[in-house]
């Protein structure tokens, strides 16, 4: 059978297929590279990078929940200089696109990272204004429409690469936030980041996470993510990268039908180190089963 055309376009960058890891769940690809041929992924999305090294939150940073997990990593990262030195050359040795997720505590820090990265050999930037695990920056930027537009616009001034804005699901009206990001100049939107959650150890009578609260991800959140992708796709024109609980190609197809041009696989990597590649193959299988020649034919093709 003929292989379907899996190419998709995010902000002018062509990916060989729509599948990438979700930021923060895949390091910079080194570890999962032992299980997955990185050349076969549409892109590698690296963990959140800030201007200076961040230590992140105290441990425990993870709690398992029903069909999901909470994390409170808090954007631990070695800072942009070490990242540029060590990880970009590693990733460039593969035939895949590089998407760098950027973090900041202030608008200035986001801009500084974008500016520094603008001269580096990377393909796309992803602006994380939705991390629930940091006090400053993160989710506080992502839940107010004016701030979303403002920070997007500012970062856009420095970014040479196309800019994805990553949205938080912890909002009353995701469409309003999405429109604000697009108004600020976002070339693409990715959603969802984690839902804010909490788990309590009833025997110790304290939260499982040292940080108290954390971000909920995994299959449990998928219905919320699909709904938000659907709503946003009805309202904006830019391509959407859908994520939240994708573990199989079938899950990915759900997001694509809802309106996602590409998809990211996060928590599923922890359940199955080959998850990203399995999703690529299963999407292909679905397209072949229904004799669909080009994946673009099914983007946003859910009929209501």
């Amino acid at each position, binding site marked *: 059978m003929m292989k379907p055309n899996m190419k998709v376009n995010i902000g002018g960058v062509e990916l060989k297929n729509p599948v990438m890891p979700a930021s923060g769940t895949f390091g910079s690809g080194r570890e*999962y590279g032992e299980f997955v041929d990185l050349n076969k992924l549409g892109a590698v999305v690296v963990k959140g990078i800030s201007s200076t090294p961040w230590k992140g939150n105290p*441990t425990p940073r993870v709690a398992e929940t*029903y069909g999901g997990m909470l994390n409170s990593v808090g954007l631990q990262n070695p800072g942009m200089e070490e990242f540029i030195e060590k990880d970009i050359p590693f990733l460039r040795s593969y035939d895949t696109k590089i998407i760098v997720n950027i973090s900041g505590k202030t608008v200035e820090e986001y801009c500084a990272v974008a500016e520094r990265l603008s001269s580096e050999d990377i393909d796309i930037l992803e602006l994380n204004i939705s991390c629930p695990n940091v006090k400053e920056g993160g989710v506080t930027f992502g839940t107010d429409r004016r701030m979303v537009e403002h920070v997007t616009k500012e970062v856009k001034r420095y970014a040479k690469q196309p800019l994805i804005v990553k949205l938080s699901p912890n909002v009353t009206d995701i469409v309003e936030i999405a429109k604000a990001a697009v108004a600020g100049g976002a070339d693409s939107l990715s959603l969802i980041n984690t839902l804010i959650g909490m788990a309590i150890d009833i025997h110790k009578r304290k939260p499982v996470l040292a940080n108290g609260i954390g971000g909920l991800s995994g299959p449990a959140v998928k219905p919320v993510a699909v709904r938000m992708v659907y709503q946003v796709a009805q309202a904006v024109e830019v391509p959407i990268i859908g994520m939240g609980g994708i573990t199989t190609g079938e899950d990915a197809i759900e997001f694509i039908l809802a309106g996602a041009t590409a998809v990211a696989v996060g928590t599923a990597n922890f359940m199955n180190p080959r998850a990203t590649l399995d999703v690529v193959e299963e999407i292909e299988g679905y397209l072949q089963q229904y004799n669909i020649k080009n994946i673009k034919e099914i983007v946003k093709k859910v009929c209501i």
Partner: protein
Amino acid sequence: MMNMVKAKIMKNEEISPQIYEMIFLSKEIGEQGFPGKFVNLYCEDGRHLLPRPISICEIDKNNHTIRLIYAIVGEGTKQISHLRVGDKVKVLGPLGNGFTVEKGNGKNIVIGGGIGVPPLLELVKHLKGSTTVYLGFRCNPILIEEFKKYVDYVYVATEDGSYGHKGNVLELIKQHNPIGDRVYSCGPKPMLKAIGEWAKEQDLPAELSLEERMACGIGACLVCTCKTQGKEDWEYKRVCKDGPVFSRDEVIWE
């Protein structure tokens, strides 16, 4: 090289109250296994998504089998205990750095506590020189006779006094005041901290195997960190990849 395998279970039995022994077949993991490394077991019950890290207790390179000893502490380990002989278990491994097995001779002091005891069994099989083993348990000690097969001195402390010294293993060590060249230890955090301090007083190098809640188990997600001393400042290292074995000087106890 890590492997993701569906391994056939050869044994999965309760050997002591709430303590299970599992033996599974895997050539790849058997060949690359090493004392102090661990494997990830997956529950595959739909509800529990994250793998359960369990240390390698013994490796039989001839028969390609791996032996684990695990305690039932929650839903995941309970699920795993329900697997039957002949079933397949999803395993990722071997993971982590393992102990540094000194090439030279000398005196090894090996100290285990509770469910931290099993990984030391494979270790003592690899150690050169002379080895003294101290094991502490709350009650129901395990593996003592097996340790005796490989080492001359095995001292046991139980908190309920049912076997050996009544009390904890650190008291026993302080009583004995053993002379040695290096320390290896695995057990609960408070014990490791005390062992680390004792080793420092004695000016002995010590390798301590830590535990932390994990997700990926391979170093990608940064959830399993422990505070360590970096070049200038303290830093978070990954227990799954940079550990689980750390030298006593590295670890910063909270």
